[in-house]
């Protein structure tokens, strides 16, 4: 009798524990998905891997901290931070990527690495090196579900991610601009011939990608804190998500982000928490060894 009760209790403990890890996994995963989507959008339009994507994320968080500090109300501060980051995205395309058209892929990668150093340097100079917190959007009171707890902010992360993904789908499938971006990614020359302003498409893609990154940064900042280096790991794991889903495949990047986030939370919870940050990379290596173009990628060749 006692034994049976004990077993039941430990079973529900186990499922609560699992649920707990799952909650933190999907929260992480949603963030990685947004970052990965940012990689995909820029890659599709320009075939550039933007190593400054993580810095867009960081700038969203740090920007919000700054505008809140000016006494602006939260929604205004958030919009201002997204606008500021989007400007950086536009600037990156106009002043760094566009002038280097025709350079090799490695050169373009290094230009974006330079941009990431500049953005980190700038934030460090203007806003300092300290860690900052953004207040959670609707309180810090954890919600209990089946023995596991979830922060209201996690629900914000998930909800906004779903909305953004749906909005992006609508944008790419139903709007002229979205279709132009898709056309450019499929065949740049043909797009040009069809009268699509390819330069403008690239410009918009960088801005869109920056805005997405900023949104991700703002959403997680209340959970993880933020400082000028906060974008580095987020950027790398977002890159993992984009590659895992097959570069350029937007929905693939979302799935990739979720897989990376859940694997990370489960791995850290059940296996070895010291190696939490390594899990995403072990996963990506295993996948690439067996499926060289990602889980949902088209097989094809390209070279650096």
């Amino acid at each position: 009798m006692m034994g049976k009760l004990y077993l039941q209790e430990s079973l529900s403990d186990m499922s609560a524990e699992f649920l707990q890890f799952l909650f933190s996994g999907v929260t992480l995963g949603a963030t990685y998905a947004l970052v990965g989507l940012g990689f995909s959008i820029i890659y599709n339009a320009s075939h550039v891997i933007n190593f400054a994507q993580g810095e867009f994320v960081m700038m969203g968080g740090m920007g919000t901290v700054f505008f809140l500090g000016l006494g602006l109300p939260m929604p205004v501060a958030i919009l201002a931070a997204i606008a500021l980051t989007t400007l950086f995205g536009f600037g990156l395309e106009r002043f760094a990527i566009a002038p280097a058209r025709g350079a090799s892929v490695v050169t373009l990668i290094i230009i974006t690495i330079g941009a990431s150093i500049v953005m980190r340097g700038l934030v460090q100079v203007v806003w300092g090196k300290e860690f900052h917190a953004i207040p959670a959007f609707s309180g810090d009171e954890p919600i209990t579900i089946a023995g596991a707890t979830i922060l209201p902010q996690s629900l914000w992360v998930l909800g906004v991610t779903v909305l953004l993904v749906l909005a992006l789908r609508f944008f790419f499938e139903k709007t002229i601009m979205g279709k132009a971006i898709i056309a450019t990614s499929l065949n740049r020359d043909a797009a040009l011939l069809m009268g699509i302003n390819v330069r403008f498409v690239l410009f918009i893609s960088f801005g869109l990608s920056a805005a997405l990154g900023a949104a991700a940064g703002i959403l997680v900042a209340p959970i993880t804190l933020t400082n000028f280096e906060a974008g580095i790991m987020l950027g790398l794991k977002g890159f993992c998500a984009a590659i895992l889903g097959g570069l350029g495949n937007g929905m693939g990047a979302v799935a990739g982000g979720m897989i990376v986030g859940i694997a990370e939370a489960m791995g850290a919870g059940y296996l070895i928490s010291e190696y939490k940050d390594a899990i995403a990379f072990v996963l990506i290596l295993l996948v690439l060894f067996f499926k060289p173009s990602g889980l949902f990628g088209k097989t094809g060749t390209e070279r650096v």
Partner: protein
Amino acid sequence: MDKLKSPRTGGLLILMAIIAVLPAFLDNAFQVEIAILIFFNAIVCIGLNLLIGYAGQISLGHGAFVGLGAYGSAILTAHQGWDPLLSMVAAATFTGVLCFVIARPILKLKGHYLAMATLGMGIIISIVINTEDQLTGGPDGMYVDGLSFMTSQIHWYWLIGAVLVFSVWASLNLIHSPIGRALRAVHGSEVAAEVVGVDTTQYKVLIFVVSGVFASVVGSLGVYYSNFVTPDIAGFFHSIELVVMVVFGGMASTFGAVVGAAILTILPQVLTFLHDFEHLVFGLILMLTMIFLPKGLVPTLADLFKKGDKS
């Protein structure tokens, strides 16, 4: 006579002359230190350039191989009491074998997927070094005794200078051999290389191992020189820094790798007077150089002077 005029021999002689006379212009230990640091970075970049510049295979994880050399040597010397030189050889062998094992699956990948895989591999190795603190001292790093016969800094200058000259010489030899042509053919067109008998996989693996061993040896020598090592050496930023040096100096140019290593080692030192603005300005210089000289410094200059030969 003719040989002296070729950029290959001429460049090597100029490099030797610079290394020979440089100490006369170095005022203090700090400047000698920077010179030695340049030599170390240049040697890694020469190996990495064979992989990236010649064979066209990117690696965003080579810092990890420097780290394996450094920690391999440090652990064997400090914990196991091995002879330093033997430790260095053991670490290089280990790195070489590891490269050989992972090269096949990794180098099957192309472009950004290859970049991701090498980056991931590097980060995993650096996380292991950071985490296994019983062995490595963790984020605080670890101390190691130096080489007993290297009693002053200038000894190190000459030793590493000599290793650099040897590396440049060997790299040039390799490039100007059937192997070097096969590597460039891999870069140019893998299918075309295969139909005339070049086993492209074999050469990709070979050069991955060679560049890994170059990095490992530098890691070992570096740890004996500074008697101290931290996990940063294996980190993502060090890996990126190495690739940046290669591309900045100019891909597929051995002397470009040396020049890139020299400039990007000196630049942060020069910029320290900017204090907080250091990183910002460094990033800007990097971006502007790559935007306006996308082929890198040395090839662009070489094109300007139309000197022909691409050593």
